[in-house]
């Protein structure tokens, strides 16, 4: 085991998968010579050359669309969208094409590609370098949406996503890139897509989250522990399709559920999580299903004061956890 950062885990996963399978290649803006604006692809251009780490023109629909063609042929493209906010021009290719290729061809063709996209706020990015975009894609059968929170999950899930036979939208929280560090085994391993993970065992309340807010919740749980309450924390990891079984199990465990995500509350994926619980184990609950998200305004004012107001943090999450525990 070695302690590495969230971003290092990405870089390692990419490198190892490219070593392992000649069909894996990367395409995107500035991914080559520059190694990506966040340096996620650093060193790969030198190692694999300009054809397998392809600097593309500035055109997201083509990045995904060209990837789809190559994937249908049998390659394993890993397309990078520089910021998740800039995935919008590629929505048609992702939703109408990648996600439906298998279904519409009655299983004749498929589209094994990964679309990586750094999302999330807290980086002084303003309204177009801060958004959470998962809700837009968590209603698209044929697509999988993955969003790891730890270096271990990151590496294992990115590998799974690259090896998957279907398209995966792979969300990386950019604030986590260098902030989050953790143990990662030296040898090859994968983490299965579609499985949530308990990140903390507890008895009093259940918190369901992912990404940056998962870490905030873990911090808040420490503080809550001092109050005498123990929090059970589930990391969704895969956002679509959701791991319903794990969600229900976690909800039943304590009977008090708080769902936390960075995205706006209304229409965020917390709604689906809450609905699953309310449909399947309502009578096992001891409290209303609480949700904590951003206010329903466009994500991420640039000004620091406003950004702080907008973003969740461990304190805000602690308050909500405490309130639920007291319920």
């Amino acid at each position: 085991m070695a302690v590495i950062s969230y971003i290092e885990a990405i870089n390692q996963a990419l490198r190892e998968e490219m070593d392992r399978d000649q069909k894996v290649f990367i395409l995107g803006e500035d991914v080559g010579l520059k190694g990506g604006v966040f340096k996620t692809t650093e060193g790969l251009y030198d190692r694999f050359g300009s054809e397998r780490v392809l600097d593309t023109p500035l055109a997201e629909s083509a990045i995904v669309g060209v990837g789809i063609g190559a994937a249908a042929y049998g390659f394993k493209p890993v397309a990078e969208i520089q910021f998740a906010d800039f995935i919008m021009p590629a929505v048609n290719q992702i939703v109408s094409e990648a996600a439906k290729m298998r279904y519409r061809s009655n299983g004749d063709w498929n589209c094994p590609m990964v679309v990586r996209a750094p999302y999330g706020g807290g980086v002084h990015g303003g309204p177009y370098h801060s958004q959470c975009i998962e809700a837009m894609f968590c209603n698209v059968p044929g697509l999988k949406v993955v969003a790891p929170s730890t270096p271990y999950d990151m590496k294992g899930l990115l590998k799974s996503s690259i090896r998957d036979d279907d398209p995966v939208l792979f969300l990386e929280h950019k604030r986590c890139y260098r902030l989050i560090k953790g143990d990662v085994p030296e040898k090859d391993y994968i983490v299965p897509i579609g499985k949530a993970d308990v990140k903390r065992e507890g008895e009093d309340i259940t918190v369901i989250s992912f990404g940056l807010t998962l870490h905030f919740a873990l911090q808040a749980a420490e503080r809550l522990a001092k109050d005498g309450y123990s929090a059970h924390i589930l990391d969704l990891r895969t956002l679509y399709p959701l791991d319903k079984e794990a969600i229900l199990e976690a909800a039943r465990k304590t009977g008090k559920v708080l769902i936390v995500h960075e995205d706006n509350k209304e229409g965020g994926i917390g709604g689906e999580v809450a609905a699953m619980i309310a449909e399947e184990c309502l009578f096992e609950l001891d409290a209303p299903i609480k949700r904590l998200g951003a206010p329903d305004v466009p994500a991420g004012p640039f000004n620091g004061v406003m950004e702080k107001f907008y973003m969740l943090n461990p304190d805000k999450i602690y308050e909500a956890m405490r309130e639920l525990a007291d319920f």
Partner: protein
Amino acid sequence: MGESTAVLVEKKHRTLGLSDEQVLGMYRDMLLARKLDERTWLLNRAGKVPFVLSCQGQEAAQVGAAYALDKEKDYLCPYYRDAGVVLVFGMTARELMLNSFARAEDPNSGGRQMPGHFGGKKYRILSGSSPVTTQVPHAVGLALAGRMEGKDFVSFVSFGEGSSNQGDFHEGANFAGVHKLPVIFFCENNRYAISVPYSKQVACESIADRAQGYGFPGVSVDGSDILEVYRVTKEAADRARRGEGPTLIEARCFRFSPHSSDDDDRSYRPEGEVEEDKQYDPLRLFNRYLKEVEVLTDKLEQEIHDSVAKIVDDATEYAENAAPPQPEDTLKHVYAETGRDGKWQ
């Protein structure tokens, strides 16, 4: 002079390296495309086939272009009118009719998609969708994949002129231009996007003018002249295979039918326009050529027409009697069902 013209014209297909058998095959494929199309309209009016998208008027462009490609290795990203293209690449009349009837056995989509949404791995035809022009970047991706594998196949993508106004055309063409990929961008310009005439769609004279912005050649060709279409497409394919990059071809065509079986074109097409356009019926023009050069005799013509009629009847009957999908088939093929390592279960 009639004589010498005939000789001159005769030279045409031979000069292009096409044998008499080949041009007869081309004629047959055009005719088959036309006759299948006519049949689906009848079936539609009889309430047996819910939807029709026609190739009528564009058969020369389609068959001419497809013949210029290598059926054994090239990849296709056709659009919904391209019955003529996919027939040349091996899709059978039965398969096309299965598609029209949306039967379980339809190789394009097993009845999941509307007719005209072609696809078939065995023919190297990438499955297409309804949102127009999305196939353009796909063709570029196929070409990129071929280049990475050191293959020499060409990737052929077709679309209407209206569709060339979508962003995906621009982005795909530019990508191919930058990477000099073996792609043929084939625009079938029938001067209408549903009801919108050419003058309200684009302001350039020819869609081929757009190639300049991507650094590769653009060629405009009479889409009713199958041999000319063959010639320019062959040149483009040769260029592509030589590693010299993409070509944009505009084939100037006519749309003889309404946009689809749901459309009534009388509200927007000038009266008599279609009749006038039919002077340039590619099928009639090619028939005339083949007779002039004495490749097509009356007897041969009769044989071909009879055989095509039989094929159409057989395809119709076969497809009409073929089984529909099972209701629960609806749930299949959303994701891969059997896993590899790390795969969705």
